[in-house]
């Protein structure tokens, strides 16, 4: 009995000894997460790459090797090219709005004013609400017949002016009142860009404010002593200091917009006439609805180089932010 207990004790002690070793413990604690991610991210990712070189169709997980055919087929499709173009338009267009909006808004939100908490609550709402749900709210907002947007434009007598403007800048040649925000190719592109900007802006604002807070007060004091004010201070002090953090926020925004499926799918389903397809929705239509698993995988993989570039840039700027 006693001997048994002693043996158990020594075994326990040995185990304890092993568990106390930092290196062993670190590996033991990290391993489950890493193994899990390898299984549910690594394996499907590798599989997507494999599929993209095969002629696999819906219902199977394998196919015969077709080399680069899927990629060249995808590339020769006008809808695919439009999807690439749209992905770029949404991503860059919305991020330009986000960058400018967040820079301005964060500048004022760091001040102390009455009612700040409610303003902050309202500003953060688009990011806090689940994206599918807020997108449905936009579907309602942009409805051509009952929409508040067109009603307001009509009451302010701006609708005909807007139609003229859309024609004048060659965005929509023969638009009519009431405007079909989601029913005309270019107007839908514009609406989708705005919805993307709307949902990413709060995130950027919050990151900008955090970045501002991370700048030591001494910098502010020093620049005051040196007499840097107004535009000069903005150009030589504020912008260089905040640029890395701002870029990190924008790069996140690029990733969130470029990989989005829900906003486009819910608002337009890629229509009208595939004019608002983006890479993720086009991959869905080809891969799931059309059943060409291999080509769908190839289409979705076209996003990967873009994401790689953005990620490398993000790491680079995050490090610069750390140094400053």
């Amino acid at each position, binding site marked *: 009995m006693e001997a048994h207990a002693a043996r158990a004790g020594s075994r326990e002690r040995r185990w*304890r000894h092993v*568990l106390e070793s*930092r290196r062993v*413990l*670190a590996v*033991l*604690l*990290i391993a489950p997460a890493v193994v*899990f*991610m390898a299984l*549910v*991210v690594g394996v*499907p*990712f590798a599989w*997507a790459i494999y599929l993209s070189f095969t002629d696999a169709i819906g*219902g199977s*997980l394998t196919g015969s090797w077709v080399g680069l055919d899927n990629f060249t087929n995808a590339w020769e499709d006008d809808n695919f090219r439009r999807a690439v173009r749209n992905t770029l338009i949404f991503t860059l267009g919305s991020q330009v709005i986000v960058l400018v909006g967040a820079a*301005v*808004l964060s500048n004022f*939100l760091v*001040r102390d*004013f009455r009612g700040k908490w409610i*303003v902050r*609550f*309202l500003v*953060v*709402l*688009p*990011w*806090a*609400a*689940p*994206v*599918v*749900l807020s997108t*449905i709210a936009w579907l*309602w907002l942009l409805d051509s017949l*009952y929409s*508040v947007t067109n009603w307001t434009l009509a009451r302010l007598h701006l609708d005909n002016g807007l139609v003229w403007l859309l024609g004048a800048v060659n965005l929509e040649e023969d638009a009519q009142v009431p405007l079909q925000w989601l029913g005309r190719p270019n107007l839908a592109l514009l609406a989708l860009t705005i919805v993307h900007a*709307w949902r990413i802006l709060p995130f950027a604002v*919050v*990151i900008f404010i955090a*970045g501002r807070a*991370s700048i030591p007060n001494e910098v502010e004091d020093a620049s005051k002593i040196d007499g840097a004010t107004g535009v000069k201070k903005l150009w030589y002090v504020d912008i260089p200091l905040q640029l890395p*953090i701002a870029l990190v926020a924008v790069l996140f925004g690029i990733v969130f917009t470029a*990989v989005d*499926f829900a906003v486009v*799918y819910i608002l337009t389903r890629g229509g009208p006439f595939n004019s608002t397809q983006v890479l*993720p929705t086009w991959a*869905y239509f080809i891969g*799931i609805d059309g059943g060409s*698993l291999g080509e769908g995988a190839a289409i*979705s*993989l076209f*996003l*990967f180089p873009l994401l790689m570039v953005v*990620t490398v840039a993000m*790491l680079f700027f*995050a490090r610069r932010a*750390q140094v400053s």
Partner: protein
Amino acid sequence: MTRRQKLTTYAVVVPFAIFLAFPFYFALVTMFKTNLDLANVENSPYVYNDLEGNFHWDFWNYATFEHVTFLFEETNYPRWLLNTAVVGLAVVAITLALAMPAGYALARLAGGWGQGAGVAIFLVYLIPPTLLFLPLSRLITQLDLKDSLWSLILIYPSFTVPFATWLLMGFFKTIPQELEDAALIDGASRLRAFAVIVLPISLPGILTVVIFAFSLCVNEFIYAFTFISSSEQRTISAGIPNDLIRGDVFFWQSLISATLIPAIPLALLYNAFLDRFIKGFTGGAFR
């Protein structure tokens, strides 16, 4: 601040707040609109109107609750809410079980390579579902998990684990090393020091991870949409756009109620934990 500065602040901040929050106000009004009020395109969409299209200050007499009732009694919506909660809570549990040890080890035990490994794990978060959903949807079918909530419970941690590991690593780093050292000197094992000292102090951080991981699950669309096709098994993010939008006939009030009801509590929670989240999120990047 001078008076002028105050005025310019409001002049900038208020329009932004209106633009960003407007869809929610509009959704709130729509929720309780009567069919006659909604269908009359001359009526102001901003408020409730009587049959002649006039606004009255006792506006609640011109609103109706019937569409919210319809949603809960005549559709699968309550079921979707339940499914969403089940998936969210299960995923959060799995996420914590995997990410807490990993986050702690990266912050405390790994030494020099901890930061690098943390960044590498975070990068996994940036491999989006849109790259993975095609092989995964096939895989789910082969595993016979199609139309089952288990498919989502199994796959959602693929994005919550890297996200949570990164956040938790940031939170654990902010806990003074001395507290643990004192416990270790007193003879506690590392794991015990973690459980007794580190966990209680990190509770706010862990709660933040719970909220944000849960909200990522509610947000997810493409997996919920491709893995599950029977209405009873859907979560809200796939159920609402698929089953409440029927052809060209929109039940706008019910549809909008369905979106606003879960969004409000989530938004409140989000706000309450936002500062902590940002600290953790940016903690690894800029200190």
